[in-house]
């Protein structure tokens, strides 16, 4: 059983929040849910829509198929009627729909209840009525959502939901029926919120950042929980300040991070090098959107892979982690903090608008067995002595660090090339030793990491990175031809050895940029030239149906 629902309307009218209430009602009925919204870069006007996929099986992405379109304005019908099997709308809009239409006097019902705005709740009630779910969960959610409001408002909302539900039950028949499933301890969470949860669980105590879509909700999420978890959250004057403050806090011994999108990350480039040169741990969450420059501020893309790998002058090792789903956002963020501190290295968490904002239902992180696997590892922290050298050359390249406040541990962290003590040093031998030392750490780290996961067994292998993981997984379910799937969560260090084993396979890269930046990376790391590329760079994520078609052409 699967139900794909889409709600559309004018931006600024709370369409997305409304859709999420429906999604959460399904979650609380024990169902698996995935939701994803498209919205323009403006506050009022324009067109918003949200897809919600509900199933009794795991659902990893949205779908291009719409079983029921809830249209709250004319534009939604114009834009989405064609791709939808049926439309649910107010009677005033039914004339312009084509095909199956469920018209409800939503506005009239809402007006009778005292406010035309209640029509949105009437529509949600009607949706539940159509698919055969009861109002229990929705009622609870409405009470929670409007708990700060007047009792009359809550009651009117409940009445609106009931009126919509009753109307649908009495007047319509709908093919798809959903029944509540066995309740599991699940949460419904977005990528950015999962990064926030991961960071807090990892003991991150400091974030300095500047708002930039689609990374802003990491900053605001951390701010929301700052008093509960004793986190200092600094909305800075610019991204230059963000990265440098995070480095200052990391240097002092606090687990610290920043977050931004491509434009802000460009401003952080020099700071990234500073973290590498001073060997200061810092975690940078970068959520991509299409560029160049301001590009498409509220849309999705994967065009910053090579940028994340190469930003800042000269060569130095940096870790780039690209979580593929909300679970990975949670777990890999924790791993990012461990790596940053153990290896005293900058770590980039590379997501995109799709993963940052899409919500998935997953096992509650607090219950998940995996959460116990990640222990906080702080790396080598020294107590200080007369002979202490901050940048001591060691076998693994990692030098024990002292934290300010430690007696006999005083040193200078310098952005200049420096010797073992930290003093500026321009000797050529020292330059080689220090560069090699920084790369040595990276080699050791690469050995610590486990291989990527291979799903399935076939000569045809789709290679994806980051947010496309879920879409590829869904497309494997529906594709008529069989293919295997490798998802790369670690971009740097790159799993070269593992990849070399795949040289004989029919490899197909799927990614969201114009030039196939992952193929470039694979060629550089392995020499493998990938011929088959499925690329999308229209600012929208892939969808499973079209991807399955594209893949089957290449098999």
């Amino acid at each position, binding site marked *: 059983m699967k139900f794909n629902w889409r709600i559309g309307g004018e931006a600024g009218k709370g369409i997305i929040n409304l859709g999420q209430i429906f999604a959460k009602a399904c979650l*609380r009925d024990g169902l698996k849910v995935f939701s994803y919204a498209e919205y323009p870069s403006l506050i009022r006007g324009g067109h918003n829509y949200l897809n919600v996929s509900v199933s009794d099986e795991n659902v990893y992405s949205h779908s291009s198929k719409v079983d029921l379109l809830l249209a709250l304005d004319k534009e939604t019908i114009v834009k989405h009627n064609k791709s939808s099997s049926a439309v649910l709308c107010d009677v005033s809009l039914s004339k312009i729909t084509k095909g199956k239409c469920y018209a409800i006097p939503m506005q009239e019902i809402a007006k009778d209840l005292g406010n035309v705005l209640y029509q949105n709740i009437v529509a949600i009630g009607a949706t539940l009525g159509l698919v055969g779910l009861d109002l229990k969960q929705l009622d609870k959610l409405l009470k929670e959502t409007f708990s700060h409001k007047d009792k009359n408002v809550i009651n009117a909302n409940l009445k609106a939901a009931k009126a919509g539900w009753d109307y649908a039950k009495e007047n319509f028949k709908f093919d798809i029926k959903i029944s509540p499933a066995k309740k599991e301890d*699940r*949460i*419904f*969470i977005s990528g950015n919120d999962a990064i*926030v*949860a991961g960071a*807090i*669980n990892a*003991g991150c105590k*400091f974030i*300095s950042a500047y708002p930039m879509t689609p990374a802003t909700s990491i900053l605001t999420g951390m701010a929301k*929980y*700052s*008093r*509960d*978890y*004793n*986190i*200092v959250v*600094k909305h*800075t*004057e*610019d991204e*230059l*300040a*963000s990265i*440098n*403050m995070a*480095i*200052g*806090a*990391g*240097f*002092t011994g*606090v687990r*610290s991070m920043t977050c931004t999108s491509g434009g802000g990350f460009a401003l952080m480039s*020099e*700071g990234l090098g*500073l973290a590498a040169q*001073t060997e200061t741990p810092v975690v940078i969450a970068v959520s991509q959107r299409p560029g160049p420059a301001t590009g498409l501020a509220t849309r999705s893309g994967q065009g910053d892979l090579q940028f994340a790998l190469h930003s800042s002058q000269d060569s130095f090792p940096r870790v780039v982690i690209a979580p593929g789903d909300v679970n990975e956002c949670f777990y890999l963020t924790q791993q990012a903090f461990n790596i940053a501190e153990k290896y005293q290295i900058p770590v980039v968490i590379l997501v995109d608008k799709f993963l940052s904002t899409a919500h998935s239902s997953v096992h*509650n*992180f*607090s219950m998940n067995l995996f959460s116990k696997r990640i222990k*906080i590892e702080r790396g080598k922290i020294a107590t*200080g002595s007369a002979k202490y050298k901050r940048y001591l050359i060691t076998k693994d390249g990692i030098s024990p660090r002292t*934290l*300010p*406040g430690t*007696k*006999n*541990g*005083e*040193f*200078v962290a*310098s*952005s200049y090339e420096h010797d073992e003590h*930290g*003093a*500026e040093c321009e000797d050529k031998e020292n330059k080689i030793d220090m560069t090699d030392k920084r790369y040595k750490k990276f080699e050791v780290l690469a050995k610590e990491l486990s291989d990527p996961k291979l799903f399935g067994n076939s000569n045809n292998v789709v290679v994806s990175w980051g947010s496309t993981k879920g879409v590829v997984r869904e497309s494997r379910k529906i594709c008529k031809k069989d293919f295997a799937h490798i998802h790369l969560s670690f971009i740097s260090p790159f799993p070269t050895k593992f990849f070399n084993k795949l040289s004989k396979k029919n490899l197909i890269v799927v990614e969201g940029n114009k030039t196939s930046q992952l193929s470039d990376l694979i060629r550089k790391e392995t020499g493998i030239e990938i011929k088959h590329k499925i690329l999308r760079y229209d600012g929208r994520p892939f969808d499973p149906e079209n991807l399955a078609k594209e893949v089957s052409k290449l098999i």
Partner: protein
Amino acid sequence: MNIPTWCPGCGDYMILAAIRKAIQELKISSEDVLIVSGIGCGSKMPHYVNAYGFEGLHGRALPVATGAKLANNKLHVIVISGDGDAYGIGGNHFLHSCRRNINITYITQDNSVYGLTRGQTSPTSPQGMKTNSTPFGALEQPVNPLTLAITQGATFVSQEASHNIELANTVKQAIKHKGFSLVNVLQLCPSFNKHNDIQWFNKNTKQIKTQKNKYKAIEIAESSKLPIGVLYQIKRKTYDEQEPQISKIPLVKQSLKVNINKLLNDFI
């Protein structure tokens, strides 16, 4: 310890001596001091003081210092920047640090010229000053660091000359002050700003008294003679004081173990 690499007669030697003296006289342990700098001749200062140091990027000393102070508010954080570092490339951080009133000490080495890149115009160069980047004279009017600091919310604003024996005392007061404290040091640069020598300073500066009134202080800051001394000092809650998360225990001393169930309940 490293040996300073400054020109003979450079004001940085006196600033270094003043910082050392102030720390010593205030009896602060070396491990509790963090000196942060950016890039410039004088930004090599952390290497010459027995303390923790961070020599960061050009213009970015203040954010590094702010992050460090918020991470461990028990540290005495002293920031040192040249006039280019402070008022040019780092100007934005300067004005936000003033309004933030973060409890750090900001010592600026203001010699009205870029030294490390060998003699270009700086944000505090007077209009008409000929340098190798402005061979026909600088066209912009100079930044007035004191007026800027006062108007943007700094709570301790002072100016000293690098060759003035009072410098150490002013630095001491600045370290003791709770809030963002500026010591703008009018500095000798015998290599690239030969015009502003000791005689010039003696003729163009005047000793002033500390003001509590913003407007009186600005009037003095804008007068034709450069004020010397603590120009402006007021009490205002510092940024770090207003963060309850660090009011009892510095962040760095707090346990990393948390129970995120409360957070996760929001997603059920």
